[in-house]
């Protein structure tokens, strides 16, 4: 049966990007504005943390060890041993109002991450694909706030949200080239009665898309045809992202934020915590590592 628990009362300013790694059997997640990377085991124990030099939008593990991170001003590598970040490339230089935000690895091992406007008001941003060889390619542009990149189990459909539009989009995704085409609306949050905004997302083993409705505090599951399948309310409204993990890939790990938004501090003491949601009856898929 459903069980929702705080496994790290972290009070993260902006918890994000939970990522379960099957090889290590550990969860990685970040505090975007706190500029931290955290990792822990399936029950929130054995925590390790690293500070990064800029605001961080997302993280992926590399096949050869260490991580690739999207920091404010570009893609970096992170060496867990010494905690050092090294800049690879700034895909969109010279724009101080934007920072890199959510990102994930596609089924072929390429890292896709997009930018967001710090003001969350203007479509100043693009989403980029970093190939294992280090080449950066723009996938889409005209975005206010990039969030929730993820792929269908066969990798041929790319899901992505501009949080400001309240929609999740679907694209055809070319497995060989990593090109995203034919963007269409996959689902609209207001159309199915959701009052929050689409934030982080993942695709489960049945090909259903899970998103969090941020500022509303719900986990939401959509069928591949875009129909709202179900939702589960969470203990805080400021839920930001999820990833399936644990030994059986059947625990949803959910991040949240403690920060004050528009002058209002959250009234929930658990805001900013890392949650584990058991009993959803659904499994996730192993998250690929970056091949570069």
């Amino acid at each position, binding site marked *: 049966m*459903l069980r929702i628990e705080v496994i790290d009362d972290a009070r993260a300013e902006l918890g994000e990007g939970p990522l379960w790694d099957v090889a290590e059997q550990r969860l990685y997640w970040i505090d975007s504005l706190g500029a931290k990377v955290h990792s822990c085991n399936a029950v929130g124990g054995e925590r390790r943390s690293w500070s990064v030099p800029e605001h961080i939008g997302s993280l992926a593990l590399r096949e050869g060890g260490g991580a690739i991170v999207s920091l404010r001003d570009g893609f970096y590598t992170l060496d867990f041993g010494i905690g050092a970040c090294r800049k690879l490339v700034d895909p969109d230089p010279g724009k101080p109002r934007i920072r890199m935000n959510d990102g994930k690895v596609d089924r072929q091992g390429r890292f896709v991450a997009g930018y967001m406007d710090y003001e969350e008001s203007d479509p100043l941003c693009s989403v980029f694909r970093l190939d294992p060889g280090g080449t950066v390619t723009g996938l889409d542009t005209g975005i206010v706030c990039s969030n929730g990149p993820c792929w269908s189990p066969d990798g041929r459909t790319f899901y992505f949200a501009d949080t400001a539009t309240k929609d999740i989009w679907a694209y055809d995704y070319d497995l060989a080239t990593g090109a995203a085409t034919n963007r269409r609306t996959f689902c609209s949050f207001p159309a199915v*009665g959701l009052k929050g905004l689409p934030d982080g997302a993942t695709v489960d083993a049945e090909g259903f898309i899970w998103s969090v409705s941020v500022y509303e505090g719900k986990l939401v599951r959509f069928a591949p045809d875009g129909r709202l399948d179900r939702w589960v309310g*969470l203990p805080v409204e400021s839920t930001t992202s999820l990833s399936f993990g644990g030994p059986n890939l059947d625990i949803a790990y959910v991040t949240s934020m403690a920060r004050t938004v528009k002058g209002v501090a959250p009234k929930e003491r658990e805001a900013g915590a890392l949650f584990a949601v058991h009993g959803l009856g659904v499994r996730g898929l192993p998250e690929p590592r970056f091949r570069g």
Partner: protein
Amino acid sequence: MRIEVLIDVKTILGEGPLWDVDEQRLYFIDSFGCNVFRCTAEGGEVRAWDVPEKIGSMALRKQGGAVLSLANGFHFLDFRTGETQLIVDPEPDKPKNRINDGKVDKRGRFVAGSMDTMEDGPNGALYSLHADLSLHKLDDGIIVSNGPCWSPDGATFYFADTWSGEIWAYAYDLDTGAVSNRRTFTNVDRSGGGAADGSTVDAEGFLWNALVYAGKLVRYAPDGSVDRIIDMPVKKVTSVMFGGPNLDILFVTSMAKPPLPRFPGDGAQRGSLFAIHGLGVRGLPEPRFDG
């Protein structure tokens, strides 16, 4: 902090969780399913009793059995036979009313209020059933009675008309059971469609209220300010009560169906009985009815 589904019971209108310290058991009801349920703190050993009418609340009696507020009046329930026995029907002339939420004061009186079943008109009233089984009207002009409970010293009575948008506080005379000086304790945040449902007061004197239709539990300080909020897996949370061996588990009821078509749908766990651990707060033992 941990929120779990304790029993996936799918109550149509779960209500009235009541932890009994003597028995170390949780009682709760399904108002529309016409059931009384009992279970352990872990949701085990579930027992159910059918009652003959819609049920608004229940309390245990010192001498055994329970007192119920049914649609057609106050009744006793004998748990062994399952039989109910009418004590008094306060509103035989109001067939569109039913008696709703109720609780026992610190001196063993059972206080419960009625409601308009269409949740429309101020046709309800608040009653106090004394140990001698005499019935006393405490207030009236109420649409939907909900959330009666008392400060730890018993001298302040909290109560809500769900559709007033307020929770009220009254001065409560422990010796006579009379209420006076009704004032606004807090204005409920109705912005998300929520309304005040069942309440309890914790050992620190803070009031916990189920904000039904908004899916929130709100803890108010004794001055009426919002101290803390817990967002729940479902929108239609109905009532709260601390219990368990250390009185530190918050039990929460919910409804699987809206009572009227105008109310919204809900999440996948609707109608479940929930338990919340790790809040760092304890409740107070709930008194039994003296009659």
